[in-house]
């Protein structure tokens, strides 16, 4: 149980460290050129999410947060990559270079602007509530959410889009472990299960896209546009 001031200080810094690495992985998703790297970055992001959950559970002496961290690790760091590699293994390993609508340097700058925006949105929210871990987790979780949304819109291939959506949920959860630590465990379990279903559904859908349309460059699908 947390005791001395120095332990609390150390834990706060470690949590902030996990948060900053979480942010870096969110940037990494946008900056990477390889599909397998996307998956790896997602796993690293989920690990930092679990790390933050563990640190906060120790700080708040909360058992449910500990379970949340465990579930996150099990589902997002183990099960989801296993599922994706199983359904989409060839796809993940085949293509080497993936493209974006903007080039990477421009995307990095835009994502910096998004992070600053997340910061400005969070400040009034934090002003009305006591501080603590939420002052770091909320803005960075929101930034992860927005960066995932941005990554989803600029990517042109299917699998990076799926991974971007999953990282959006990571961001929302990262904020959630600090601001809503006592959400009923059933809701957390259901949400984890939901993420698994998303992966399964989207994975199978990507295979169908590959089968019937031929490529997974979904950004180029335009059969349904009005002329």
């Amino acid at each position: 149980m947390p005791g001395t001031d120095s332990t609390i200080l150390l834990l706060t810094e470690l949590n902030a460290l996990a948060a900053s690495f979480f942010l870096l992985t969110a940037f990494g998703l946008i900056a990477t050129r390889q599909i397998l790297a996307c998956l790896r970055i997602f796993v690293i992001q989920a690990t930092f999410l679990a790390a933050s959950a563990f640190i906060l559970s120790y700080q708040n002496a909360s058992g449910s947060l500990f379970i949340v961290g465990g579930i996150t690790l099990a589902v997002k760091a183990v099960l989801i990559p296993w599922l994706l590699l199983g359904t989409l293994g060839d796809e993940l390993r085949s293509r080497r270079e993936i493209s974006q609508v903007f080039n990477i340097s421009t995307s990095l700058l835009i994502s910096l602007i998004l992070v600053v925006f997340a910061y400005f949105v969070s400040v009034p929210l934090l002003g009305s509530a006591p501080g603590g871990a939420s002052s770091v987790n909320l803005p960075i979780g929101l930034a992860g959410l927005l960066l995932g949304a941005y990554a989803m819109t600029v990517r042109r291939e299917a699998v990076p889009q799926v991974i971007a959506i999953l990282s959006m949920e990571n961001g929302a959860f990262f904020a959630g472990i600090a601001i809503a630590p006592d959400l009923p465990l059933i809701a957390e379990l259901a949400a984890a299960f939901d993420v698994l279903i998303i992966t399964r559904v989207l994975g199978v859908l990507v295979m169908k896209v590959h089968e019937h349309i031929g490529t997974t460059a979904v950004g180029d699908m335009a059969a349904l546009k009005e002329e």
Partner: protein
Amino acid sequence: MEQKILFNIVQVLVVMAFAPLVRGVLNRLKERIQSKRGPSIFQPYFDIWKLFHKDEVVSEHSSWIFRATPYIVFVTPIFVTLLIPVLTGYPLFFAFMADMLGGGFILALGGFFATLAAIDTANPYGPMGASRTRMVGFLAEPVFMIVFFTVSFVAGSTIPYIVQKHWVTPLANFFEPAHVLVMLSFLMLIIAETGSIPVDSPSGHFELAMVDESKGLEYSGRGAALMKWGGCTKFFVLLCIFLNVLVSPWGLAHGEAIGEVFLAVPLVLAKILVFILVLAVIESSLAKLRLFRIPEFLGAAFVTSVAAVITRLLQS
């Protein structure tokens, strides 16, 4: 007072003496990792000695810049040595002459003259390498700036001695995201500024692909010796800044006894050796980036440093 001036001079001598050794150890380590024998670790000393005893050939189309540059490149890192903590943990006589920003500018002065001299000779490869070096340099500028801002914001000062104290006392400060991320981006900066893989290949001989090495192409004799030695010193100085200020501010002398200061020398060298090992592993495991991917590398460094600032702002 005289102690402090003496220690300052000792600092400079230590840096000048051990800089080629560090470079030699790095080269040998890289070769050993690749299962080759590698040159002796004292090879840079032999090279500098040999070069000093050779004749100098200077192009008659070059100006005073070409002749002056080796001296400037040699002297500027020595000036910076006066400002940073190398052996002692407390400020020495010249410590307040300039802060980190000033030190950065002085190092940049050396690089500036090297670039000019490369263009001066009308060797076709000189300007090519010079323009690439400038591109890397100007992309690294924002990263430098943000790193300095973060560090000064966190530690409250830009004098290296004072900054270094901030990370030492509460251990929790060491794990601050501002600290760790600044370490990461500064590491990327060192790789960019000193021309290591993945930005440039320091052992390559192919002039068309050279970025940093091309500045020394035209020199011979004493000029080449000074350029080489100056390059080693700059590398050593950057390492000292990185290690003694940011990464491991321990092992520095705190008392005024001369014995302590001399004891600090092997400790500093040991720290540098550990870092050299890490650097050698990094260099051996990555491939050199294509030229137009270098902005992405520096963009990643920029983003890391901005993340450091943002997390710091969020915490306060």
